[in-house]
């Protein structure tokens, strides 16, 4: 049985999407021109970064139903690989970014080979353990190669700063936007492709999918690798954009924050992670000064959504929208 979230990805939602996405895209393109506030632009860049990562995570968790917690570890691997190659070998960040993505793919295959044969809770634990180990190993690294607990500084940039501060942030803004859009688009295509259908089939009824000739293991490694590539790429962008990367990207708090974004928006849906990311980045801006209160609200939101609206806010909004249209039709 195909569940409601995937319908939004393949069918009904498309009509609404045909309008929503171009309008949103256009608004994002003209934003830095009409309102070049560096603070807001940096915030939007960060939103782009997390939208990309969340969309990748959602492909693994929501679409393919693999409850992996290794997404930020892959993000960090991409970032660290690219930063270290650029720092120590002097390679241009344009090239190291892709190497970062490939390193993340490699890591995902190494993690995936033993874990993806297992199911449900086992995957949760082994991927969580992988994340923890990476954090501990980098945090306690004494060789100076990864910078230990303080992280790497002076990571080479893409070189846009020679055109001035304003051009630099514009460059990063559009770069992040294109990267994020590319990721979202690629994952959308994958989800609609026969491969994506195979993922969803495996999620919804593994036994039946296997009987129809889908190899669960091979497809799960594939989904892991696809999602890892884009995550690594974005991780690399993150390192070169901020000029630094430290084990703080592996903090449990950040992981929970990203997961809450997906859950609140609605995992397994196309728009869910995007909506959730925007909402929670905005929330954390509003409650910037009271960190604990923000986290308590975040936790409450996770409980509330998991217990009351397991398909996320996107579903709630879609239902409201449909009711509104029905009400409009009825009143005419």
């Amino acid at each position, binding site marked *: 049985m195909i*569940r409601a979230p995937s319908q939004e990805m393949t069918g009904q939602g498309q009509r609404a999407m045909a309008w929503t996405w171009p309008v949103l895209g256009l608004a994002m393109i003209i934003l830095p021109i009409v309102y070049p506030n560096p603070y807001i632009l940096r915030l939007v860049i960060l939103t782009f970064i997390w939208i990309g990562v969340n969309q990748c995570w959602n492909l693994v968790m929501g679409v393919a139903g693999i*409850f992996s917690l290794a997404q930020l570890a892959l993000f960090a691997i991409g970032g660290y690989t690219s930063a270290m190659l650029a720092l120590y070998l002097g390679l241009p960040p344009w090239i190291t970014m892709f190497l970062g993505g490939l390193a993340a793919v490699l890591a995902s295959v190494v993690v995936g080979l*033993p*874990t993806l*044969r*297992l*199911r*449900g*809770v*086992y995957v*949760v*634990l*082994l991927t*969580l*353990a*992988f994340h*923890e*180990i990476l954090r*501990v*190993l980098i945090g*306690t690294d004494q060789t100076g190669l990864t910078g230990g607990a303080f992280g790497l500084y002076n990571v080479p940039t893409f070189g846009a700063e020679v055109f001035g501060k304003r051009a630099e942030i514009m460059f990063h803004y559009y770069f992040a936007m294109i990267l994020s859009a590319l990721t979202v688009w690629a994952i959308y295509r994958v989800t609609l492709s026969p491969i994506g259908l195979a993922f969803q089939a495996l999620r919804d009824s593994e036994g039946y999918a296997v009987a129809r000739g889908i190899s669960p293991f091979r497809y799960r490694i594939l989904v892991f690798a696809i999602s890892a590539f884009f995550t690594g790429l974005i991780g690399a962008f993150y390192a070169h954009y901020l000029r630094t990367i430290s084990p703080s990207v592996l903090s*449990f708090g950040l992981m*929970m924050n990203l*997961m*809450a974004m997906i*859950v609140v928006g609605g995992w397994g849906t196309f728009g869910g992670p995007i909506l959730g990311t925007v909402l929670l980045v905005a929330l954390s801006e509003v409650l910037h000064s009271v960190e*604990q*209160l923000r*986290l*308590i609200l*975040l*936790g*409450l*939101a*996770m*409980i*509330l*959504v*998991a*217990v*009351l609206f*397991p398909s996320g806010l996107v579903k709630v909004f879609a239902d409201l929208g449909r009711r509104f249209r029905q009400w409009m039709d009825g009143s005419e």
Partner: protein
Amino acid sequence: MSAPLVQSIVSGLLLGSIYAMMAMGLTLIYGALRMLNLSHGVLFMIGGYVAWTVATYLGLHPLVGLILAFGVVFFIGLAIQRVVVRPLLGKSGWEINTIVATLGVSIVLENVMLLTFGARQKSLPPMVEGSFALPNGVVVTYHELVIALVAVASLVGMSIFLSRTRHGLAIQATAQNRDAAHLMGVNVDQIFALILGVSSGLAAVSGVLLAAFYFLSPTVGGVPQLKALLVTIFGGLGSAKGTIYAAYTIGLLEALVSLYLGAKWALPVLFVFMIVVLIVRPSGLFGLGEETRL
């Protein structure tokens, strides 16, 4: 045997005792409800804070704190059953939704504790002061003895409770077949509440006992929870006997790795060990064929 080796075996057995208590709670919940409780580490931490409050503000003996911690966290467990388990029971996506919801619970509780007690680390006095030396010079504190005693006593008590008492048998029946137990007149809702309460209480007790070693802070539960989860998997999810064997194996392994390679490598070695075990025996040491049942 050399003194450092004996010392690390002693600490391995201690770690094992505490892992066994924590993992026992997780196994109980997993066995009966097929639910991974990711708020276990936070309950562990809260137990420590309850005992600390009792010892510092009321000036009572930490042992009183231990008992109170069990009581307080028992009720938090009941609350989790009310808020998370009961509304989600029998709905689709149970496994994922309970993971997300218990993560939410842990974030909320952790930050409530941070707001109440602040981030500064607290230390809890040991249960009993003093220590004695083994013939070859290895020092064992009385507190460590208390830990081992409490752990073994609660594990034995647990197994007697599960196999001899009415409620214990009801828990086992519910774990084996929820519907059949229900038909036999077991109040499943009540049993789930009992399971959540007891398992949370066990987490709190291990939190109190461990607090004398580590400093208490609101984030202290994360690593013990991860290790308890590894123990639970290694022992075969939902198998009580396997959990106890696994806890001592992992405790000893961790102590030996720390001795020979350094504490930093404990988690990575455990991880690799886990992967090897899961490849050879996908359902853990005493797994009950969860692979097909999950």
